[in-house]
């Protein structure tokens, strides 16, 4: 499992810059990110190399941030690659709440982050179908 940082963001200019600056100054490297938004606010989801430290730094700057467990997997980087994996989860009745991709400099495969409700069951399903699950160590250090 990977610790993802979820950050509350108002839809105002300069908010994202501020967060990137705080993390930059704390020498925290951002590995991947995605934003979900409404007209008023958004949730910024970040994968970083030092999640606990990042949350601490953000909170000290009055930014609402929490840790959320997500799963990282590798999928074949070719047409239909993602679909093959999703079929397994779908068959097992596991809902994906959100999903986004990351760039992995070393691997040939695409890296996918996903948040599901039944995280342990999802891991079982993925493992038993030989889907490569990416360790937190690799995410935080690649």
């Amino acid at each position: 499992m990977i610790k993802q940082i979820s950050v509350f963001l108002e839809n105002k200019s300069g908010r994202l810059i501020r967060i990137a600056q705080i993390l930059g100054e704390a020498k925290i490297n951002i590995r991947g990110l995605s934003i979900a938004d409404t007209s008023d606010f958004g949730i910024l989801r970040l994968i970083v190399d030092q999640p606990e430290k990042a949350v601490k730094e953000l909170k000290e700057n009055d930014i609402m941030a929490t840790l959320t467990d997500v799963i990282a997997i590798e999928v074949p980087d070719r047409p239909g690659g993602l679909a093959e994996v999703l079929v397994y989860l779908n068959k097992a009745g596991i809902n994906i709440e959100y999903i986004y991709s990351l760039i992995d400099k070393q691997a040939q495969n695409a890296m996918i982050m996903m948040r599901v409700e039944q995280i342990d069951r999802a891991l079982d399903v993925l493992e038993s179908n030989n889907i490569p699950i990416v360790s937190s160590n690799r995410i935080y250090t690649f």
Partner: protein
Amino acid sequence: MIWNPYYEAIDREKLYTVQFLRLKQTLERVYQLVPFYRESFKQAGVEPGDIRSLDDLQKLPFTVKNDLRDNFPYGLFTVDLNEVVRIHSSSGTTGIPTVVGYTQKDLDTWAELMARTLTAGGATKESVVHIAYGYGLFTGGLGAHYGAEKIGATVVPISGGQTKRQVKMMKDLGTTLLACTPSYALFIAETMEEMDLTPKDLKLRSGVFGAEPWSENMRHVIEEKLQIDAYDIYGLSEIIGPGVSYECPAKAGLHLSEDHFIPEIIDSATGKVLPEGEKGELVITTISKEALPMIRYRTRDITTLTSEPCACGRTHMRMKKVSGRTDDMLIIRGVNVFPSQIESILLEMGETEPHYQLVVDRIGSLDTLQVLVEVSEQMFSDHIRGLETLENKIRTEIDNLLGVTADVKLVEPKSIPRSEGKAQRVVDKRTL
């Protein structure tokens, strides 16, 4: 026209005699029948017998809104419930509403006062009176209703909402007098424009507007857009409802019916009575009410009083348009809102130290309320849907408790400006 020339234009010396007799009766009544008053008089070291002139009134203790809440619902009533024929209510700061009651005689008094108010605003037997104040627990609708019927006018009890239909009815029925909040009057004017109607299409000649503060500037806009005379009226449910004071055609202050109420102006910080003409908090003692007399009730409204003769011939004192409040009460679309009510909603939802801000604005002619709430750790969730559900829940609670639709917006922690650690609770952008 004056509805009741005998009392409205009474010689002031005669008036003082009427006031003193009625005050004495009221004091005896509350002292004998209401434990709260007996106790508060004793604590102040006075008895009804100590009041030997109108000036002695200031020896008596004040009554405040909280006293009504502490004695909720009927603790301050001087009559049995079988004598009470009507209840009205306003929403409360902490969820406990204030309840007021009327005997048949009280309702007759109220109708008399509203008859004076509407007559001063141009109503006669021939008038068609369109009452767009809300009917129900709010005193506006029914208060105006019985006054207009007493005059013998033709009453259209339309209440609030469905503005296009209201305009059509006014046109079809030949309405001559409109009674509603001043902001709703403006909204009606705008709706008429949308419907391609001009004042010439209507027979409207005047309007009596109250239940929220408004300025001279707003009067000019209403008068211009609707081609009518616009009159300010004042009242509060604790005293009786609308009809406590009203403007006459001179539009130079609101005559306060002194044969039923004794007004004072005090320094709200010290409680000292201020000389005539000075600005301060309006305090009212009712001297004819049966079910719920009020002794030196602090209205929290800021104004000044004058007994200078008025061009209209009425001799009752005039109060200026209310210029503000001594507390943080907001009036939004005619509804009284205290910031603490919003706070109590957030506290009930499990927030330990909610930071919020009320932003009140007037867009077009309607008041808008936006509630900014800082996201706390326990509110925050990683799901957009979770946050949207939270916003909706706060909005629904506000609507349920206050009857006001609010736009609820979650904002980042510490984003609401603070002064001395407390978030600034209210931003009122309205230019009245």
